[in-house]
């Protein structure tokens, strides 16, 4: 398992969070329990299984919604 911290463009509406939350959770291999989308710091934190998915796939799920991914950091758990 790996831990990802994804910095996104500034959120302004709380429904953005819900969208990103649902989008990220629907990626196969992402630990649903670990997903935390933070409104004020405009970040998403989550754990994922690197054998089932990759950080690129998770980023794509977010950019497909029209949000810009500024930076992401992946660490071993």
């Amino acid at each position: 398992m790996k831990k990802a911290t994804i910095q996104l463009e500034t959120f302004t509406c709380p429904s953005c969070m819900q969208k990103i939350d649902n989008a990220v959770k629907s990626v196969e291999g992402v630990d649903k329990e670990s997903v935390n989308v933070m409104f004020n710091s405009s970040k998403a934190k989550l754990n994922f299984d690197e054998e089932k998915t990759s950080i690129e796939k998770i980023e794509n799920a977010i950019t497909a919604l029209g949000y810009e991914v500024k930076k992401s950091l992946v660490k071993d758990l």
Partner: protein
Amino acid sequence: MIQRFILGKKNHITLVSAVLIAIAFINKWTIGNMGIFIWSLVIASVLGVAPIVIQAYQALKVKVVSIDVLVTLAVVGAFAIKNFEESAIVTFLFLFGAYLEQRTLNKTRSAIKELTQMAPESALKQMENGEFEEVEVDEVDVGDILLVKTGAKVPVDGTVLTGEGHINEASITGESVPVSKKKDSQVYAGTILENGTIQIVADRVGEDTTFGRIIELVEEAQDSKSEAERFIDRFSKYYTPAVLVLSVIVWLFSQDIELAVIILVLGCPGALVIGVPVSNVAGIGNGARHGVLLKGSEVINDFSKVDTIVFDKTGTLTIGNPKVADTEIYTDNADEVLSYLASVENESDHPLAKAVVEHIGDTKLYTVENTDVVKGGGIVAYVDSHRVAVGNVALMEQENVPLDEKARADIARFEKTGNSLVLTSVDGQLKALMGIRDQIRPGVKADLQKLKKMGVKSLVVLSGDNQGTVDLVARELGLTEAHGHMLPEDKSAYIKGLQAKGKIVAFVGDGVNDSPSLALAQIGIAMGSGTDVAIETSDVVLMNSDFSRLPHALGLTKATANNMRQNIFIAVGVVLTLLASVFFSEWMNMSIGMLVHEASILAVILNGMRLLRYKLR
């Protein structure tokens, strides 16, 4: 691609749609050409709704009924009844509102952003060829050797290998007086090298550095949610779809599209969902600027209701650095005695000995021979071929030093004022008596008064010192209760007792040996210059051990908790008023509904922003 392009041009679209609406109405009032009027509004509506439709589509794709979905349907409905005036104005207001929200939200977040922007971004790292090259701070690993030049930020926590300099550690400790660093000194990420050049080896990098942890703590805090917020979140998840269903039902029964559309617009949740997080981020941001780290909205709520504050004594109410407060000399040759005393005490690292050495200052130092440390008594040694004994009364008795009436009276007087005693005898004669005590932090008394004024009923001090010393501090500071002879476990047991009586207890300690009490109290407040344990176990951290931040912290949490309540009140009030006016008034239409909706969102954001300027009067 097209989607991204349209979303990126949202601000331009808002402007164009404003111009079109203006053209339409100017034309209506002057030339009166209905064709131009209607077509301007149609174009404004279609243009304006484009980004909203895209957002709605994206939301539905991940199974979220968002506010965009409601607005899109409302515009479709307005088109169906050919009310282009409403559709154009509603889309414009929605886009313009979003723009203003973004601008103002950025303001409320600015305080915390200032903090995170102090994080170092690059480092000069030694490469394999021995040269230093600039790299991103993420690329630095533990063990790397880094060069820090004058004026640069220290990129990681590390140890100085070579070089010297002065570092401003304000970002970690809040103290802006530069600290001298040389070989083997510890340096911290985010601090600034004001002069000199140093090479360091990286010990901790990224989020593991002290600064990284402070930032992470504050970032988590601004997004941490209280029970009430989690409730609102759950509520809004079902609220939006519920509004949709309600509007469909109204439409089916009344066949009145206009009414159904108004309900869609009015039902948009906005102020309710955004109100509490906005107060939270502004309050925590204000704290971060003033050296108070608050760990989230739950802490804010609890702290604002506190009625009992328990203090540790040493290092909290007092400086934790004992000093010589009273001196009596029983000889004409004071300089010689003080030199002997300093020479003997120089050998010891006992806190009292350090206080004595510091008090005497620069003096002639003799060679000390045959040093004998008497456990629980003091030190006996030969200085300048005299037998010198330094210690407590028991040691003097053991050395057969006679204590005359004046000396006994002085001892009694010193003890009464809470001093620890250091007696000095030379060749069996008492020469000097010193009373050493811990100093009360300057300004503490006034700060405690402020806390009382803010409604804290009892202020309690708990200490491991003897009861006499603790009573003295309590009397001097006007505390309600004082208990001495307390071990760490006694302190936590005492706090448990208070809680059993229904008190809401805050514990203030330096975090070194108070961890159980910090964790147990509803609000653990650490006076730490960023010590790790304190940061981990406490709920509130007062940076740089600054006691005067405590009243500000309490006042701020009270103001923030109030602000949250005001925002919930505004939000709920607006929704109820709007819904009531749909059914009971004539003047309500889509545009007014959207206007009020956007205005209420701005109202809660602006209300939250007031917290950024909060200052304790």
